[in-house]
Every structure is written in structure tokens, then in C-alpha cells.
């Protein structure tokens, strides 16, 4: 099968204190990445969601927008007392937040990048994680909406000068999340007030279908909420966190995972089999399953299907992060943050462990858009030493490593996963994983990591059992469902057993003969 369109190249953005630079992504020639764009001094650099635009903030009042492919500067904006900026998903608009002194000042401005003109502005008092970016777009920019007090305002994304075209009144709404692809639903969170429980409600983005919520879920004991839509906009995962744990099990509060579907098939808690907080939850790139890492350490990881039933248990371990491969099939379980950095790569279609490795002190981790590489980075505001980038293959072997004096950010340039071909070598490699592969990997890699052979071939040294504990062991095996080991009977015991059986046979023969006589 020949494809005429060339798959796009991968690119990596690395930002240091002096500025950012873009490298040509893997595969690297002779072990070093080629530099695509030399260092440009900046404070913030971020790609738009589809990778077509790059926004760079220079020395606090100038924003430049670069083209994502050619890395040429398209437009530059001069904005005094800038506090934050965000690009829209397709790169058409730029939102900026300026510090404002009086309510008359409209300090959130929406600029159109192509023309450089401002199309919409409004006043917002302060900027928090839940309320920035103020104007949310769907992935194709067909729906745009904003959270205002007690209502959600919808805009026409082609023409912002009309202001909002319709609105949805929800007294007390505190956070919204627009579904990304397609943008047909909006989820709203209303916190608890005066005896009424907190609730999550899903409404349709259409003006006409907005009288009743499509789905709702109420609960108490929740102070913040993070909402995750899936790719097909059919399911919403909600992690409800509270700062105080009323069940008295943890000092850090509790978190619960709720799952709501837009067709109404599931509206409730996801039943997790271990107590403890929900560390991480991610949808797969196809939108049909999600993975949850939950429980007190060592945490359990499970993949659920879109009905909310568990489809695969990935075991327990020191993990608190899960990352799905954009091309499907592989999932990486990792323990970053305060955990030592163990990473396990699983193929969840074949239900096999591909490899494990360690990446200590990593802060961020992300799969490449083509799914072949996994990059972890140790970045500066969190960790001041050992900053660097490590790139792994999909099975855990290290591919590239570079240390920096100080690194602030390391990102892949976003691309749609469909523009890359499937990973053929992954398909063949998974089927042929043997001990031979393990040796090849051990020769090729440089740094110290342990790649585990699949469990069926693993040999552990047998534990020493003192002679008097043999009895207890066999009883334990029986009690816990194992088969009683027949090979551990001693010679004397074997002899006695034979004698008893012979006696039994004799008795049976006698009684048989008696019966026949009578």
C-alpha cells in the first residue's frame, strides 16, 4: 500500500531560560537532533492544538505567532501588562489576558491572527485554572462558548462581532467543559450550596435542545472537578475531588471518578476495586476505552470499556500516570512526581507486557504523535538539577538522552495521529517477543534499565523453606485454592500411604466376597 502523502516530520520544542529552539524530531541521524529553529529568546512558547501555529511571548509584552511548519513569524502583537495568552485549536484566534485596574477596562481580548485585529473583548476579574482560557473552542472551532456568571454564552465562531448569539442560564455554574471533537455537548459543574448537592450536567450545544440536561449526576463532598471528554464526545469522565476526607482515610482528601454518557447508558460512579484516590484517568485516542490508575500505593491500573466495565487489569505497582499511545495498542504506566519513575509499557490489545524501564525524576511525559517514541523530560521550576530529555521506544528501550543545564519545557509538536502510518514493527514485534529479543535490547541500549521478559518465561529463584514449614505450606496451598503438591510426600509417608491403600483394597475384597456368599 503506497501512500502519496508524506507523513509529517516530528518536531520537538525545547525551552531553556535563554529561549526556545525547535529540533527536528526522531529518527535522528548520528544520534543528535538537527536544529530546525535556532534559539529565540522568550518566556512562554506553545503550539496550537493542531500544530499549525506557535505562540511565543517575549519579554512580557510582545507576542509573536509563528507558522508551525515553516517556523516563520506571521504576526506580532504588542500587549502591555500581559498575564496570559492562549491560542485557539486551529490557530485562528489568540486570547490574551491583561492586568486590569477598573471594571471599565475590557482586559480579555480575542485577536484574529490573520488580520491582526481584535474581534471581541470583555472584562474578567481574575484568572484561575478553571476559568482560563475564558473562551473555549471545539477542535474544529465550530462552537465557541464562554462562562459568565450564572450563564453560559455561545458565540458564532465565524463572526465574533455579533457578541453572544444565545445563552444557557444555569444559576451557580462554576466550571464548564466543551466537548472537543465534535463540539456538540457542553458539561457544566454546579458546586454544592445550602443543602443542594453538587452536580454535573451535560447539555447539548444546540440552541434548540437546551431546555433539559441530557445527563446529570449529583453528589456531595466535592470541591473541585476535572472533566475529560473523549474524542467522539460520547462520554465524560469526571474526577470529583474534595479537600477533606470525611471517611477519615487520608489527609489529602478524597477523589471519586464518575462517568456520564451522552446516550444515557451510564450515569454514575465507576466501580473501582481499591480504596484510595484516583491518580490519573485518560481516554484512549479512539475514545472507546479509558484507563484509570487508582488506590493507595501500590496503585492499581485498569482499562475500562465505554460501558464502564473493566476490560483489562494491568496489575498493581508504584504508578500514578497513564499515557495512551496515539496509534492505539500500547499504554504506558508510569510513576512520576514523588514516585521513583518506574515505567511499564503494555500492549492492551494482546494483553502483554512489552517492557519496563525507569526514568527518574521526570516531570512531563508524552507520546510522540506517530506513537513510536515516548519522551520524558525533567524540567526546571519543579526540579532544578538533572534537567534533561529522554526518548524511549514503544517497548521501553532508551533511544536518546540529552541533559541540559536548565530546561523549562519540552514538547512534541502536535499532529493528528491519522497522518502517520501504523506502526508495522510494533505489530510484528509483539507477536514474536521471546527471550531472544531481550538479549538484542540489552546489547543496544546504553543506560541502566531492566526490561522484563513476559511473565510466562520468567524464572524466579525458588524461596528457601525450612523442613518444618513444609506442612504449613501444603496446608496453605490447599486452603488458597492451589493443588496439593503430590511430589513433596516423603518416602515414609509414601510407604504408609501404599500400605493403607492395600488394606482398603483387602477390606473391599473381603466385603465383596461376603456379599457374594450371602
Amino acid at each position, binding site marked *: 500500500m503506497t501512500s502519496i502523502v508524506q507523513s509529517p516530520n516530528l518536531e520537538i520544542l525545547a525551552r531553556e531560560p535563554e529561549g526556545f529552539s525547535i529540533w527536528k524530531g526522531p529518527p535522528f541521524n548520528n544520534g543528535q537532533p538537527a536544529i530546525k529553529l535556532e534559539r529565540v529568546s522568550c518566556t512562554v512558547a506553545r503550539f496550537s492544538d493542531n500544530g499549525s501555529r506557535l505562540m511565543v511571548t517575549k519579554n512580557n509584552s510582545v507576542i509573536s505567532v509563528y507558522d508551525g511548519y515553516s517556523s516563520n513569524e506571521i504576526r506580532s502583537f504588542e500587549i502591555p501588562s500581559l498575564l496570559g495568552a492562549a491560542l485557539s485549536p486551529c490557530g485562528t484566534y489568540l486570547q490574551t489576558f491583561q492586568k486590569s485596574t477598573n471594571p471599565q477596562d475590557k482586559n480579555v481580548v480575542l485577536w484574529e491572527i490573520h488580520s491582526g485585529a481584535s474581534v471581541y473583548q470583555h472584562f474578567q476579574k481574575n484568572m484561575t485554572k478553571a476559568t482560563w482560557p475564558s473562551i473555549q473552542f471545539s477542535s474544529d472551532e465550530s462552537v465557541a462558548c464562554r462562562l459568565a456568571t450564572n450563564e453560559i454564552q455561545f458565540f458564532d465562531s465565524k463572526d465574533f462581532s455579533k457578541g453572544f448569539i444565545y445563552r444557557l442560564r444555569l444559576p451557580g455554574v462554576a466550571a464548564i467543559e466543551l466537548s472537543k471533537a465534535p463540539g456538540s455537548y457542553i458539561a457544566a459543574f454546579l458546586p454544592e450550596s445550602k443543602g443542594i448537592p453538587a452536580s454535573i450536567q451535560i447539555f447539548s450545544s444546540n440552541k434548540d435542545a437546551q431546555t433539559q440536561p441530557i445527563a446529570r449526576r449529583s453528589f456531595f463532598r466535592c470541591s473541585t472537578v476535572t472533566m475529560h471528554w473523549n474524542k467522539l464526545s460520547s462520554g465524560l469522565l469526571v474526577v470529583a475531588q474534595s479537600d477533606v476526607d470525611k471517611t477519615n482515610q487520608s489527609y489529602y482528601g478524597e477523589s471519586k471518578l464518575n462517568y456520564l454518557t451522552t446516550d444515557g447508558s451510564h450515569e454514575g*460512579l465507576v466501580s473501582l476495586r481499591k480504596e484510595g484516590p484516583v491518580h490519573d484517568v485518560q481516554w484512549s485516542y479512539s475514545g472507546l476505552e479509558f484507563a484509570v490508575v487508582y488506590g493507595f500505593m501500590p496503585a492499581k491500573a485498569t482499562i475500562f470499556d465505554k460501558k464502564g466495565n473493566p476490560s483489562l487489569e494491568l496489575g498493581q505497582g508504584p504508578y500514578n500516570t497513564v499515557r495512551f499511545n496515539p496509534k492505539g495498542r500500547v499504554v504506558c504506566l508510569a510513576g512520576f512526581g514523588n514516585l521513583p519513575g518506574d515505567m511499564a509499557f503494555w500492549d492492551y490489545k494482546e494483553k502483554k507486557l512489552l517492557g519496563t524501564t525507569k526514568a527518574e525524576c521526570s516531570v512531563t511525559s508524552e507520546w510522540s504523535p506517530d506513537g513510536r517514541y515516548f519522551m520524558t523530560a525533567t524540567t526546571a521550576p519543579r526540579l532544578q538539577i538533572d534537567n534533561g530529555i529522554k526518548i524511549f521506544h514503544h517497548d521501553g528501550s532508551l533511544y536518546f538522552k540529552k541533559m541540559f543545564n536548565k530546561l523549562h519545557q519540552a514538547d512534541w509538536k502536535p499532529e493528528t495521529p491519522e497522518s502517520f502510518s501504523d506502526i508495522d514493527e510494533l505489530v510484528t514485534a509483539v507477536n514474536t517477543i521471546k527471550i531472544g529479543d531481550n538479549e538484542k535490547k540489552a546489547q543496544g541500549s546504553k543506560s541502566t534499565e531492566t526490561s522484563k521478559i513476559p511473565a510466562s518465561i520468567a524464572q524466579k529463584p525458588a524461596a528457601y523453606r525450612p523442613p518444618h514449614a513444609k506442612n504449613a505450606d501444603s496446608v496453605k496451598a490447599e486452603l488458597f485454592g492451589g493443588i496439593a503438591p503430590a511430589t513433596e510426600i516423603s518416602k515414609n509417608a509414601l510407604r504408609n500411604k501404599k500400605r493403607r491403600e492395600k488394606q482398603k483394597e483387602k477390606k473391599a475384597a473381603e466385603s465383596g466376597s461376603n456379599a457374594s456368599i450371602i
Partner: protein
Amino acid sequence: MQSRIRCGLLDRSIFRVSIISSSKATNELCYIVISSAAAALDLLRLEAKLANETWCMSASTATVRSSSIDLRLGCIHGKTFKKPRRPYEKERLDAELKLVGEYGLRCKRELWRVQYALSRIRNAARELLTLDEKNPRRIFEGEALLRRMNRYGLLGEGQNKLDYVLALTVENFLERRLQTLVFKSGMAKSIHHARVLIRQRHIRVGRQVVNIPSFMVRVDSAKHIDFSLTSPFGGGRPGRVKRKNQKAAAKKAAGGDGDEDDEE
């Protein structure tokens, strides 16, 4: 057609008559208000003629004795709890108080009730374990007992042997009450709030509104615990007090200069 009449004297003048016909398994219950005992006797004699049964009556009250009548209605009653042997043992009192507080129980009797149920189950398991392994009774009753324990979530999936039943504790049972599950799933602010919500008919399991805090929730029903559809928490109309306040506020806003004397 033979029909049996079950009859219990609820009150001097009201007889509860239930007619079971043996040909099909229908059970009709009808309340008949009768003015006097004599009329009752006539009614019963009529029925007896149809049914070919004999009745003997006494003069003052119409007590009916016949071979086919089940007089046990209203008398079937067994004890569900056992009082502890030593009334003032300090450790037992402390432990019980801790459990009562943790699970929001109303009184010690609720705890003793669970302990009694647990002890009966353990006795059954213990007695089955003394039987031979291939004994059909042990197999049949053991499987039934384990199935019930699994169904109510008291034993996990891997624990499918009678020995695990002997290791059950009171906490396993108390964790499966509807009151603790409503609290644990985040639908109530505290364990006492959960009891109030259940009792005030805000909680449903599946489609059924459950009013009983000690409802033992099965494993497959556990994910269907939700606010009921008629409850104000679950999308129904607001409650009585709120509606009254809203009406008063609307009235005040509309007729602000009018008379407000009947506003209490």
C-alpha cells in the same frame, strides 16, 4: 374445586379473608367489613358449604377452626438478635460503641442483629465443614451459602471456600448496608446524613425507592444507587418548604404594596 380459606380476626368487625384456590397459584386477599359476628358466621357457613368443609363456631367471637385454615398469620415471629451475656464488660461496650458510631446505627440492637445473623451463618458453615467432603448436603448447602455471600459482596471473587465464611466479621456485613454505601459513594455528607436521606425517600436502588437504612445491597445493585427521580436532589420538583417559600416570595414581589397580613 377445593378452595381454602385463611381467616384471621383483625378486629371484632373486620375479618381478613384470603382465598387460595388449589388449582392455580393465585392468592386473593379481600377485606370484608362485617357488622356483627352473626353475619360473619353466615358468610363463613356459606363459604364452607361451597367448599365442603366443617366449621365450628363459638358464640362470642367467630373463631374458626378447621383443618385447612392457617391461623399463623400475625404469629410468625422469631428473635433477630441476642443480648450479650455479660452486660457491663468494658471492652465489649467500647468496641460496640465504636462500631455504632462509625456506621451510624441507631442503637446497640442493630449491631446485635448483625452479630446474630453472622453467628448463624458461621454455625452453618462450621457444621457443613464437619461433614465429609463429598457429602451431597455439604456440596449443595455449601455452594448455596457461598453464592449468597458472593452475591452480597461479603466474600471476594477469589474466596470461594467455606473456610473463608468462618473468617467473616461484623464489619463486612455493616459495610454492605445501604446507609454506608450511600455515604461511601459520595451521595451524602456524613453517615448520619445518609440515614436521613434514605429514610426521607431520596435514594433509589435501580428503579425502586428504598426506605430502609439496613438494606443489604447486592454487588450488582451497588452501581445503581442514585437519587430518586422524584427527589429534589435527583431532578424532581422542589420540596414542600421550598415551594412554600417560593410562593411567598413571588407573592411578595407581585403584590408588594398590597396586603400582607396573611403572610405567616
